[in-house]
């Protein structure tokens, strides 16, 4: 168990350091989601009341697209210089690599969300009518739901032709219940009409189920020959 965490931490620190120096993923994600926000603002020009009903969807669609940009770059770095092959022959646990990558992506996407949310608030004149603190569990669980499957499918699409296209094709259908939970939960909190408890439980269930599935199957995907 200790070995698992040690390797996870080492890989995570390496990834964060690389990202800190290059800022590849973060810059492209930020600019991409900024573009999505601006295009949405031009396409829909809603009143404050209407915007509460649609912003939940817009926010999560923007983050979903931006997350795909980051997820596509997750493993590309390891392909150069055959790092992934080296990892495969090393005795380090496969799940440590997966956890490190998923946690790294989680941190990047969370930073993106923290930076982009104020923009949405400004552009759409948002004022939350429900209990605002519940947005935090929805954001955390929702982001994890996206990145845990995204990291797994990115590793899967490494083995295919035109892998950049494959990732969204694999990720989006599986993510539909999570996206529905995030969007409906956010809308419920913004409008203050319903309780968001069910959606938090739904996202938690989704996270537990798919984290378990990813950890069970990742070794097979990494070592598949």
């Amino acid at each position, binding site marked *: 168990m200790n070995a698992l965490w040690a390797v996870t931490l080492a890989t995570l620190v390496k990834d964060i350091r690389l990202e800190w120096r290059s800022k590849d993923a973060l810059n492209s994600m930020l600019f991409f989601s900024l573009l999505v926000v601006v295009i949405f603002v031009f396409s829909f020009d809603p009143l404050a009341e209407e915007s509460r009903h649609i912003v939940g969807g817009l926010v999560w669609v923007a983050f979903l697209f931006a997350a795909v940009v980051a997820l596509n770059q997750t493993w590309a770095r390891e392909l150069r210089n055959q790092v992934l092959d080296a990892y495969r022959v090393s005795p380090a646990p496969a799940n440590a690599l997966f956890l490190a990558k998923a946690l790294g992506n989680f941190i990047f996407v969370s930073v993106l969300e923290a930076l982009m949310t104020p923009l949405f608030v400004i552009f759409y004149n948002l004022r939350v009518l429900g209990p605002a603190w519940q947005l935090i569990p929805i954001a955390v669980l929702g982001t994890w739901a996206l990145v845990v499957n995204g990291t797994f499918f990115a590793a899967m699409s490494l083995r295919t032709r035109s892998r950049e296209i494959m990732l969204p*094709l694999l990720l989006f259908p599986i993510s539909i219940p999570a996206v529905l939970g995030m969007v409906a939960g956010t809308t419920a909190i913004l409008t203050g009409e319903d309780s968001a408890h069910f959606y938090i439980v739904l996202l938690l269930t989704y996270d537990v189920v798919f984290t378990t599935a990813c950890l069970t199957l990742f070794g097979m995907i990494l070592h598949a020959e």
Partner: protein
Amino acid sequence: MKRLFPILSVITAILLAYALYAALVVAPTERTMGDVQRIFYYHVPSAWTAFLLFFINFIASIQYLVSRKASAKTAAKWIVLAIGAVGTIACFLPRVQQLFPAGMRPSAVATTVLLIPIFYFLIGWLFPEEKLDVLAVTTAEVGVVFCTIVLVTGPLWARPVWGIWWAVGDLRLTSTLVLWLIYVSYLVLRGFSNSAQTQMLAAALAVFGALDVPLVFLSIWFFRTQHPSPVIGGGGSLDPRMGQVLLINWLAFSCFAFLVCWSRFRLELLHREVEEAHAMESLAGAGVAAKASLPLGRSSR
């Protein structure tokens, strides 16, 4: 075995013809919906067939994944047995029964749960390790075809009856659509990846898809109970003559699906044999060429 194929084809053709006659002529016209309702005899059997094929695909994928390790195989066997036993017993506990949506009979749920171990052991017994993946491709492809029929005939019926093509919040519509999307992405994955790892990747995706479907069901079930849609589900009882016609159609469609799966299965086996032969040939050719002249190193991308 091969002689059985034409016999089954003839039987299926006769059954399909009779089923069409039964659906269009024998079945009584529905009182409120009129003749539009007859699409039901195609829609429902296609849906059952598609779900059955996807279920077989899931079982075959699991079998394929665990076939790599003896310990995983044993563990999976006991887990499946446990799911069958616990699930069947749980369906008859009053506390569990309260959780079922209205109109769902406990005996029906118990039968469905019991099918999991039955299919698991049947498929494991009938198909050796290397044919499991062929079975998975076959069932996924044919399943997508039948699921497409369901998704096309559904709106055709809904437009005159409900007045709308599609009810966004409806439980069955959305879960069928998501199931279809998952299996299309499964086929896309198989199409885009022709390496030796495709089978493993596809099996993993099938497991993810199967885990996803109950969650879709759960999310929309709640969604709908919050916002009741104008759609009124079946509910009422079926005329016994309609039930008979439905069963005949279901039998005909199952035979047809089995026939298509069978030929697709044989085709895929032949395809793999041919590919293997090509690979062996080029290996042998490369060996001769390497001896004769400089080694033919293939550039690695």
